[in-house]
């Protein structure tokens, strides 16, 4: 960062041109990269506001907006005079946007002049048409320079406008965007409740909001946001500050509400939505397991997918009549028993040697194990037992007597997944608040001291590992029963990494966070192979996941829904500083009320 006490600029034009230039190039670079990766053209298929704004154009538009905002950000340091943001920043944003737009125009010129389709697959006339609004290059270039400039200005202006306005604008944008993007879900739900007339009104025929509905709904959201200003924050703060019994009761109520929703909603949803939810649930199960391993015990297990595979293959071998070597054709329920046993065994076999390693080596070793297991399942050598690359097919669904759970009925699958998810949530919750959970926390804080306090870190970590393994194995079992077959290609390292992203983005160590992470990421963007609600992102979701992971680690490692504790952990310095700035006594710790243990000197000022 630049010098601490930056000199005050004399006028709006007295910019740090190097900085402006740098941000401008970053903006331009991001725009060009975005276009060349193919996202805008691909996302153009989805309309946000019918005829006026597509997701593709929105993605392009967001870049100068965000970069404009970032470039005009000030680092406000306590004790140093900070400049009041105003015209100066607007100029910054404007220029940054203009430079970005200019670079984008250069791209347009290049598109017209040369043909670089050979390496760059998205270098196409389609992109050119997209960028020029089908109106020719001059118009396109000019339009983009102006648009980007304006957007940069708008982004920067978010610093200048009062907080109230900023909040309303943000809420309206996010609200409209969500409404548009979640169209499939909303329509499905309203159809289930017989409210099609409402959705027909809001949405356009080909998708997206109509212009009128955008205005109307936008206005409604703005009004609501204005009225509830500050209330939401107050409520969440109240919840966060709750302790003990009160918190338990509130949590229970919240949980009950969510539970009822989960049970009732699928009955009103169509097949596709249920399929999606079932998928989300499977990943949620995996994420909850990894959450115990990574979030609670602090073990970065990159080979987590191995346990997923063990569960899947055990179920397949034990229940399918096509199992090559040994086909007892047990009922799913019986095979579940063996799934647990094998998960524990494999967990111990992999975990025991690995647990004593230092963190990063542990990550790589587990990665190695994960790959070895996948390669073994895929090999010709073990083919006679596990079906090799062809896997095992014809795995029956789950016969519950009163109902049949099979892949063709997503709703039943969802309920099965829900059942296991509830188990996983319960397990996480209970373990966290137990002797073992405390041991895990201590190990995460300072392993050497934990050892010195009498905690056998090896067995504590091993237990976390094994519990995580069992949960992953459950997920594998359900997946295989749902899909009806098992293939080694379903168990790539990719899955471990995506689950890691979900856990981290949602909030490590925090059950609610993991749930939110699963819904938002897997539900909207999709899993490794399965599409989410927004199928347009199919080719780009991995890119976004990578970017998200980096972004979260840099800016908000505690996740979207942090546990209060984890937030403290990662922002310890800030927490203390804030307390000091607010005038709280050093640490919540004043000894004035404590009776001095010594008679005589009348107590004295303890620190």
């Amino acid at each position: 960062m630049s010098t601490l006490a930056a000199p005050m600029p004399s006028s709006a034009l007295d910019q740090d041109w190097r900085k402006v230039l740098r941000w401008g190039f970053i903006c331009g670079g991001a725009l060009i990269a975005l276009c060349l990766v193919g996202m805008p053209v691909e996302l153009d298929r989805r309309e946000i506001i019918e005829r006026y704004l597509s997701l593709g154009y929105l993605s392009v538009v967001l870049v100068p907006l965000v970069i404009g905002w970032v470039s005009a950000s000030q680092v406000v340091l306590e004790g140093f005079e900070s400049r009041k943001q105003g015209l100066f920043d607007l100029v910054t944003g404007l220029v940054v946007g203009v430079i970005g737009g200019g670079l984008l125009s250069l791209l347009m010129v290049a598109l017209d002049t040369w043909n670089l389709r050979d390496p760059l697959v998205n270098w196409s006339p389609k992109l050119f048409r997209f960028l020029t609004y089908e109106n020719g290059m001059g118009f396109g270039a000019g339009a983009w320079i102006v648009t980007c400039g304006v957007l940069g200005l708008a982004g920067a202006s978010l610093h200048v406008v009062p907080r109230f306005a900023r909040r309303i604008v943000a809420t309206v944008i996010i609200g409209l965007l969500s409404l548009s993007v979640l169209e499939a879900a909303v329509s499905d739900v309203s159809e289930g409740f017989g409210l099609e007339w409402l959705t027909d009104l809001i949405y356009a025929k080909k998708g997206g909001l109509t212009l009128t509905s955008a205005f109307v709904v936008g206005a409604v959201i703005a009004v609501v946001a204005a009225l509830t200003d500050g209330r939401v924050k107050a409520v969440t703060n109240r919840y966060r500050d709750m302790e003990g019994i009160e918190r338990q009761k509130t949590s229970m109520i919240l949980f009950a509400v969510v539970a009822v929703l989960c049970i009732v909603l699928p009955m009103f949803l169509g097949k596709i939505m249920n399929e999606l939810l079932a998928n989300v649930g499977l990943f949620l199960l995996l994420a909850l397991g990894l959450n115990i391993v990574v979030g609670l015990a602090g073990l970065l297990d990159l080979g987590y997918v191995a346990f997923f595979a063990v569960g899947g293959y055990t179920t397949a071998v034990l229940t399918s009549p096509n199992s090559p070597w040994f086909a007892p054709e047990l009922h799913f329920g019986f095979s579940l028993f063996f799934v647990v046993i094998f998960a524990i065994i494999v967990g111990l076999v992999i975990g025991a040697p690995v647990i004593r390693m230092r963190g990063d080596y542990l990550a790589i070793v587990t990665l190695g194990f994960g790959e070895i297991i996948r390669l073994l399942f895929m090999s010709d050598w073990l083919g006679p037992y596990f079906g090799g690359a062809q896997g095992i097919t014809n795995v029956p669904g789950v016969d519950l007597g009163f109902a049949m759970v099979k892949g063709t009925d997503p709703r039943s699958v969802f309920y099965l997944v829900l059942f296991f998810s509830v188990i996983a949530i319960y397990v996480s919750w209970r373990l966290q608040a137990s002797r073992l959970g405390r041991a895990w926390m201590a190990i995460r804080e300072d392993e050497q001291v934990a050892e010195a306090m009498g905690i056998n870190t090896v067995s504590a970590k091993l237990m976390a590992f094994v519990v995580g393994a069992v949960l992953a194995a459950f997920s594998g079992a359900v997946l295989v029963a749902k899909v009806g077959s098992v293939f080694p290609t379903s168990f790539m390292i990719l899955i471990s990494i995506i689950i890691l992203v979900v856990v981290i983005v949602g909030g490590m160590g925090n059950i609610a966070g993991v749930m939110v992470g699963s819904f938002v990421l897997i539900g909207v963007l999709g899993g490794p192979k399965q599409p989410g609600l927004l199928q347009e992102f199919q080719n780009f979701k991995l890119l976004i996941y990578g970017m998200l992971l980096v972004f979260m680690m840099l800016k908000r490692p505690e996740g979207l829904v942090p546990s209060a504790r984890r937030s403290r952990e990662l922002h310890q310095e800030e927490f203390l500083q804030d307390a000091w700035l607010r005038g709280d006594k050093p640490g919540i710790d004043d000894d004035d009320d404590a009776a001095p243990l010594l008679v005589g000197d009348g107590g004295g000022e303890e620190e």
Partner: protein
Amino acid sequence: MPTHAITTKSARRLVSVDRFLTFIRVFLVTVIVVGFLAFIWQQFDADNPFAQWRNPGARGLTGDQFKGLLISGLSQGSMYGLIALGYSMVYGVLGFINFAHGEVFMVGAMTGFIASDKFQANGMWESNFLLCLALIIVMAVFFSTFTAVVMERVAYRPLRNSPRLIPLITSIGVSFFIQNFVLGLFGPATKSYPRLPEWLAKQRSILTFEIAGTRLLVLVVAAVSMAGLWYIVERTKTGKAMRAVAEDKEIASLMGIDVNRTIVTTFAVGGAMAGVGGILWGLMFRSVTHMTGFLPGVKAFTAAVVGGIGNLGGAMAGGISLGSAESIAPLVILEPLGVPGVSQLKDAVAFTVLVLVLLFKPSGLFGERLSSEDRA
């Protein structure tokens, strides 16, 4: 007050873990020894009873075949070594595994592809091959170095003081991002390097070894790069700064060394080496995709650990060892034991080596060199 009931149980569990590890060690040594002995026996008597039982119909390896395996192991291994240098250097200086280093290698390979494709299109590839080769190496090095430096600046520098797992997780994100960014830019189709001109690629006989020109090129370029690196690290001021920062960042800065610049240089040099590795890979195997970096990346990390992390000579030695093991083990150890489809298991061998080294000898064959902060 204290109860001793817990003591025996936890002590017991630790002992059983150790016993389990010893069992694994013994099992592995047995497998390797038995496999090797079976191999030797099979060489002399192809129809011996053991071979009949486990591996009927096999005929063992001829001397030429064996030499061929050795050469391919050596050339593959030197590519792993080039990539391993980057892992080793970054771990030595910053104390974390740069998961995305494999992607730096892939960027080099991709750049090489694009450049060589263009050169072939306009005929320069055949007419002026050496110039083309030099140019594509320069371009690949440029882009991979650029990638490495940007990576450091954007993703790793802000996390300089974080607990070690955080940069590791970030590097996973970076790796993911680069892989898919390249996929987005260039598409999923496999890219093919043009063939090397015949006069370079033909078989040559050197000291009774039959070696393809391509492999020879790989070995030569790798050796030259290593020499260059050695010179930089041992003989230049920059290299000295790199070694100092790797030893102890704080003290180095007190000695007047610009730690940030040196770290950037470290990333750059590691990236350059990986870029060269990428070119060689492309010339050797002629196919590149966005996923090309993953497997060699993990294997190169294994090589770095085998040689002793932080130890540059060790990284190269580790690479060669791993390459040779990967080449030879399936045919010399696994096949005599009757394991079918051994070529599939080549990767499994590499991963097994990874796991074994990290379990049993994490300091590597030649000893690790970590900075004072990271030494356990």
